[in-house]
């Protein structure tokens, strides 16, 4: 499971590298006039494109096809802030409460247990 997850992450990032190469080398000049002739800042954008390449492709398509709604740029989602703030406060209280209430207690003189690699039989402390 973890191996498959990490492999998926690698594939995701490699696709992101390809998208970054095309977008930052060619596409960005088509959709942003401020980027034309400006090259030094582009490497800073590579990590973002690698992480969010589907979003980048979606926005690129919107701007290329003139589907961008300019008015939305001036309507920030401020109303959602109250919900986010209260939700975060509740989650913090919950995390602190559950984490501290379920503190684990162990004896100071517990017998040591040798840990082994997966697939290798565990050796008992006395054996």
């Amino acid at each position, binding site marked *: 499971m*973890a191996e498959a997850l990490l492999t998926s992450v690698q594939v995701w990032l490699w696709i992101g590298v390809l998208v970054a190469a095309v977008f930052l080398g060619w596409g960005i000049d088509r959709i942003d006039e401020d980027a034309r002739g400006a090259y030094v800042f582009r490497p800073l954008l590579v990590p973002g494109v690698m992480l969010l390449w589907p979003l980048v492709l979606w926005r690129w398509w919107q701007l290329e096809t003139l589907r961008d709604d300019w008015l939305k*740029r001036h309507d920030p989602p401020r109303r959602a802030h109250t919900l986010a703030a209260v939700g975060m406060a509740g989650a913090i209280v919950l995390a602190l409460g559950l984490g501290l209430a379920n503190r684990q207690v162990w004896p100071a003189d517990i017998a040591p247990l040798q840990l082994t690699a997966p697939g290798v039989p565990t050796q008992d402390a006395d054996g």
Partner: protein
Amino acid sequence: MSVKYVPVQWNRNKYWYDAAMLIGVFAFTWVYLRVAPAWIDHTRPVDGAITNARAFGTCAFVMMSMILAIGPLARLDRRFLPLLYNRRHFGVMTLFVALTHVGFILGWYYAFSPIPRLEGLLTANTTFERVSGFPFEAFGVFALVVLMVLAATSHDFWMKFLTPPVWKRLHYLIYPAYAAVVAHVAWGKLQDQQDHTLTVLVVALSLIVAGLHVAAAVQDRRRGDPAAAHAGSGWVRVCSVDEIAEGRARIAMLPTGGRVAVFRHEGALSAISNACAHQNGPLGEGRIVDCVVTCPWHGFQYDVRTGRSPAPFTERVPTYRVALDGRDVLVDPEPNPLGVTTAPVPVPDIEEGGPRPAPTGEASA
């Protein structure tokens, strides 16, 4: 302000901000690693790599707490606004401190792992079905990924490219990320019932952050920008003209969404969008100097009559048509297209207004 993208738009304030931040990080880790060990119970020795991991982990937590506190503090008291100025560098630095923490963890606990270290991290504890002993690593991994996304999209290009609504929704992830960091520590280091100092620090800082956000939300609800009232013929009433001081603005929420800022400048009224084109800072809270209003967040400037930044800068915000009905200030809630200028509406000298004039402010490209 930008004409072309540059990697970082440095100025003296940013140098000071970043210098203070770097000094703070070095001072914190130095005290943690060099001074604090003298206070620790030496009957329970800790390896150097573990101490390093804890130093950078604790530093990252404190930095995240400070970042999360700056926003509500600035809303509760404008004297904290300068802290908002270069917060993005604060966030990027926090990511690097957090990555250092992860580096020490992987390099120590998983140094001899027979499987790749990251895979070892993800499989070390998989008791997701239990509250006690829940895999606290998962909380940390989630928060780290969020910090990466936020840092990677912190350049001005991303705000413009994704649009503020998308960018801001993406950056709302900082709230669950911070809660995840609290959970990461609560299910991690705080399980050590002997570490009272860290317990007090984490509980105090996280509750302060939570309290500040709730307090700011309550204040917004009580004393936030009023909603503009319908005034007939599609126009809305913002306020009385006497409530707008010279060089200042009144902000109102429009029924169409968004906010309008109506400015009084040289005895005439002009209205522009309240959201700065840079990071949507509240332009209506700025002051007009030399015909332009300065955004209180990052100093972007706009001519309130045209919605344009002074040349050679290229930022623009929409203007709105304004009218006077007696002393009532009316606004057409439909914004003009970007670049369209409206004529300012003169404020009559008489204390009580006469009959309602025809809506003025004819648009011109």
